[in-house]
């Protein structure tokens, strides 16, 4: 939910979807994203739609669960009236902000509402993000009992200086405690790391990776820091107070992450994501929810600023919690805008998303948008960016070097 909202078409007040969204819905799964826009403090690099308690007037944290539940009810009636056959939810993901700023009971109540409205698939993945400082064992137990089965901790770094640059307030020493507590509570675990904060050395990054691996989570995400316009971090870099991140060093750090994680038994499956093998199985503990984004499934995003996608229509809610609450209170769709994707655009999205995952992109898709695709891909192979064997088999799979240049490859594939 980063950055400003896109520019799209106006969204109708009743939220009604075009009949075309039905097409192929039986082959798509349904997912829910729940946005909790609260944080204790705002981090310097963050451009997400979050609010500290002091920033919010009119949409109190204590009322927030009820407001969200009203959107859940609204969503059920929109999907029903659009004629899409009802589907159970495959995954639910609570993100933020800091979902764990809310009492566990609130999160559980929201989850229950989703379950009542849509029902869950067997083994549905239910994740919440968490700040290592805001959860305790009892809290985690309550989540588990309420239906959550996965938790993702925003660790970011093990190095206090790096956390300070990022303005993260949590204590890195809390991580072993909370991860252990989550495991004891019966939750699958994931930790997020950020590399490339200004002035972070490669040794510091290695220490963070090793610390994350030592936690033995089921899943690790490692993101290179993106300096988003309008953030405090961007201003600090512009003014010269902090150095600009060095893209070569970022690449070194990515390669280091891949190597250390591989050695520790993590399997790479998307540009920034690695997962441990499930014991006694071929499958890995990847995030089923995130995979649904990359496979262009249907999902409803609840909460202010949340984005949704159903059958080629994307929409996004108004950003401010107060406006969001007011719209729902007057039984109006909280969507700020929407876009209906053409077949060509949907195809282009598939290319830009599927190239990022280990499963790869069917080359036939690339050929549909670019008749020079074969020549381009031959060039990618020559430059060591694409796995030649998979390409011969009809699938474009990025090599380690290629993953770091995924956007450049997409631009070439999409230019006609």
């Amino acid at each position: 939910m980063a950055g400003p909202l896109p520019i799209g078409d106006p969204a109708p007040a009743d939220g009604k979807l075009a009949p075309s969204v039905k097409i192929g819905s039986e082959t798509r799964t349904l997912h829910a994203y729940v946005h909790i826009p609260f944080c204790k403090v705002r981090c310097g690099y963050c451009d997400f739609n979050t609010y500290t308690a002091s920033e919010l007037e009119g949409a109190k944290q204590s009322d927030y669960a009820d407001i969200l539940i009203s959107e859940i009810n609204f969503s059920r009636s929109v999907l029903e009236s659009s004629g899409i056959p009802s589907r159970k939810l495959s995954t639910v993901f609570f993100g933020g902000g800091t979902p764990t700023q809310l009492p566990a009971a609130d999160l559980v109540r929201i989850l229950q509402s989703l379950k009542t409205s849509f029902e869950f698939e067997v083994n549905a993945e239910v994740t919440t993000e968490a700040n290592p400082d805001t959860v305790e064992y009892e809290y985690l137990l309550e989540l588990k009992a309420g239906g959550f089965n996965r938790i993702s901790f925003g660790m970011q770094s093990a190095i206090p200086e790096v956390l300070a640059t990022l303005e993260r307030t949590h204590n890195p020493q809390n991580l072993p405690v909370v991860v252990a507590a989550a495991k004891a509570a019966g939750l699958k675990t994931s930790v997020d790391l950020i590399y490339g904060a200004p002035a972070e050395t490669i040794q510091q990054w290695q220490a963070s990776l090793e610390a994350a691996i030592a936690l033995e989570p089921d899943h690790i995400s490692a993101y290179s820091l993106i300096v988003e316009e309008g953030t405090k971090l961007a201003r600090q870099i512009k003014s010269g107070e902090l150095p600009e991140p060095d893209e070569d060093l970022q690449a070194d750090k990515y390669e280091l992450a891949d190597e250390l994680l591989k050695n520790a038994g993590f399997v790479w499956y998307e540009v920034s994501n690695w997962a441990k093998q499930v014991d006694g199985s071929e499958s890995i503990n990847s995030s089923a929810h995130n995979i649904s984004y990359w496979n262009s499934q249907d999902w409803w995003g609840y909460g202010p600023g949340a984005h949704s996608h159903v059958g080629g229509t994307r929409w996004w809610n108004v950003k401010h919690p107060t406006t969001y609450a007011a719209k729902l209170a007057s039984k109006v769709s909280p969507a700020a805008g929407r876009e209906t994707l053409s077949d060509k655009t949907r195809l282009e999205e598939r290319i830009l998303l599927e190239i990022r995952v280990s499963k790869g992109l069917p080359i036939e898709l690339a050929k549909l948008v670019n008749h020079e695709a074969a020549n381009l891909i031959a060039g990618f192979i020559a430059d060591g960016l694409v796995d030649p064997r998979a390409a011969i088999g009809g699938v474009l799979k990025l090599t380690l070097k290629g993953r770091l240049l995924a956007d450049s490859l997409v631009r070439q594939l999409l230019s006609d």
Partner: protein
Amino acid sequence: MDIERERGITIKSQAVRMPWESDGKTYALNMIDTPGHVDFTYEVSRSLAACEGAVLLVDAAQGIEAQTLANLYLAMENDLQIIPVLNKIDLPAAQPEKYAEELANLIGGNPEDCLRVSGKTGIGVDELLDKIVATVPHPIGDPNAPARAMIFDSVYDSYRGVITYVRMIDGNLSPREKIQMMSTRAVHELLEIGVSSPEPEPTKGLGVGEVGYLITGVKDVRQSKVGDTITNQGKPATEALKGYKEPLPMVYSGIYPIDGSDYPVLREALDKLKLSDAALVYEPETSVALGFGFRCGFLGLLHLEIITERLEREFGLDLIATAPSVVYEVTMDDGKEITVTNPSEFPGGKIKQVLEPMVKATILLPKDYTGTVMELCQTRRGTMIDMQYLGEDRVQLRYTLPLAEIVFDFFDQLKSKTAGYASLDYEETGLEKGDLVKVDLLLQGEQVDAFSAIVHKDKAYAYGVMITGKLRELIPRQQFEVPIQAAIGARIIARESIRAMRKDVLAKCYGGDISRKRKLLEKQKEGKKRMKMVGRVEVPQEAFIAALSSDSEKKGEKKGK
């Protein structure tokens, strides 16, 4: 022209006629304001040929400039009566005593003979006009002879067609007469004839000694050639007046529109400027790096600068000009001769000799900078002719220099090394054999024509290092390593490489990021269209432009490598 006002210089000559009463008699003074700069010497010389006397105006705050000497020399060559005048004496920085001394040293006579005026306040102007009346001889000519009028300028006006400025030598011309160009024998009808005072004012005709303008309805200035003689078709003169030397382009440069779709606009603009500037020559040219444009010939650097500025300003074009080049005469071993105006056309194979244009440069400067300037001339392959003191603290240096060495940033260097005090003038002195080679620039093995240069053998390496280094800074990294080489024929003399780009991927691409990501890609796709492909290497047009602009090596935004 706006450009003249802004720069405080004269580019086109201006003729004016004014009445002046002196000793109770009324005189008609015909005057021509000429440019001073060396690039426009041809304008000056033909104006001088139309006159009997010259007012040598020297800025009382700046003193004599190198070009003053050049124009003074021309005036003396034409046997003109010279009236030295110090202008702008109202300026606080004016030093009329000092410069009067200098002027007197130069042309002889007493410093007191130097008039002091201020065009701004009018001080001394009456005395000057009286002095003109007193000292400049009356025009001599035969009023009864067949008409002979010398064309000293011809400009294009979009409403009236070509306006031709003439000085009547013999006889007279009247409206509605049929006139004939003596060189082409072309006949036109005189639609209007008159004087500038300073607005055009139709008259009943022009007589001996008068300066004025003619309009015939002709649309192309080439039909009314400067230097030609006009006569009356009914009663033609037999002998034409001595004409002027046709100016030849000295400096060539490729001019390209930054937006390729502006090419037709550029062509039209050049056609229009050509109407009033016969010295401008051009022909279509294509470049790997820059697309479609024109190879243009100019009289000098200022001429180049002014034409490009006029094209940009008057026609709303965004342009890029390649580094200026001079004209080389190449003789091959087999005796074949080739004239090279574009370095990329410099022939390969066995070359017997290359001739390059030389100039005699005159530099005036405060004496403290003598050493620095001599060093500069030395590094530009200069040979000193002599050195003279013009006063106590001013020095005149004369050098023979290859023109190629001064067309590229010599003047800027000269100014910056002398705190702006030095002035330069030069005249061509013919061709000389040079030890010259062509340096090509190769991007991943592909030649980029816009950066080929003809340089002296001893400077090839430095040029190679400079240009490869500059492009390394300017070309963005690609997904593979890109070698940048400078080569003389097949021999590589300098090499840089752009390391492969290693990271270009958005770390997070989840639900809400997708729309944004797609829109970003669409925008980047648009940007890709403005890329030039050199082999597999994608180069933003801006990179070529920055590499061609001479100041980019100084500061400019450097991209992190």
